[in-house]
């Protein structure tokens, strides 16, 4: 099927009938990495493609449609996480509350002056595809709700205020959740990557 030029677009774009074949796997992979659930991921792809068709007139062609669809998917992922939060409200744990009340946190905004150093230099492996596979597995191992906070804030680039609203938590507690997520990610990466090198 030839590429058409839709109203509003400056460049020819792939017609929606070809989106599943061309971008389906890409979008599904993204959704799986964020939501971990095949059904939710498929729903997310479906919602994204349908929203894309509706909004196609507003696509200005300034970037690849693949990245435009990915931008739409960002909102769908946030919606899915918001729905799951409604079912399982985020409660602050006693250990986290103690950290927030600690002198060091109040004084300097950090958890400790002496975190354990990395057991290897991760930068060395940034060009290694296998490293990022392990990295994704390690993100999956981060416990909820720290994982959801990490995905929304760090991977989906939502602002602190937006994440606090979605998770219904305070900015300070979000700080604790992100700290826990980074800690767990580091511990998992050290354990798993050390085994694979």
């Amino acid at each position, binding site marked *: 099927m030839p590429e058409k030029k839709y109203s509003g677009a400056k460049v020819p774009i792939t017609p929606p009938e070809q989106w*599943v074949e061309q971008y389906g796997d890409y979008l599904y992979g993204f959704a799986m990495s964020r939501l971990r659930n095949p059904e939710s991921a498929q729903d997310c792809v479906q919602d994204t493609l349908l929203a894309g068709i509706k909004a196609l007139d507003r696509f200005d062609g300034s970037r690849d449609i693949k990245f435009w669809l990915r931008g739409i998917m960002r909102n769908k992922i946030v919606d899915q996480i918001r729905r799951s939060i409604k079912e399982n409200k985020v409660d602050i744990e006693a250990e986290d509350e103690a950290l927030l009340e600690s002198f060091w946190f109040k*004084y300097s905004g950090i958890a400790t*002056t002496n975190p354990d150093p990395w057991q290897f230099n991760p930068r060395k492996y940034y060009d290694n595809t296998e490293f990022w596979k392990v990295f*994704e597995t390690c993100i999956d191992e981060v416990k909820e709700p720290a994982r959801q906070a990490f995905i929304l804030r760090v991977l989906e680039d939502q602002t602190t205020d937006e994440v606090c609203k979605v998770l219904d938590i305070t900015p300070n507690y979000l700080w604790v959740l992100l700290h826990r997520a980074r800690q767990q990610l580091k511990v998992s990466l050290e354990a798993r990557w050390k085994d694979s090198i």
Partner: protein
Amino acid sequence: MFTCKQVSKALHKEDYAEMSTLRRCFLKLHVHLCVFCGKFNTQVIDSQDMCRCYKDKEAHDAVERPKLNPSQKEALKELISEQAE
């Protein structure tokens, strides 16, 4: 010059790579020299670097991921062609 709390708060609110050059320089200088928050915030910066790199790789399909199976694809195609008409 920043205080430890300001540095930690800034790193919590935004990726240091997206800060203005001057702000980024002062922040990195503080983190480099500070005996109190230096080690902690260095790890926060390292984590931001790592995640930025990961996002770049995944945006360009450089991370191996699960794919849609043929029946899922067919169902989606059917739905899309209905909507696209």
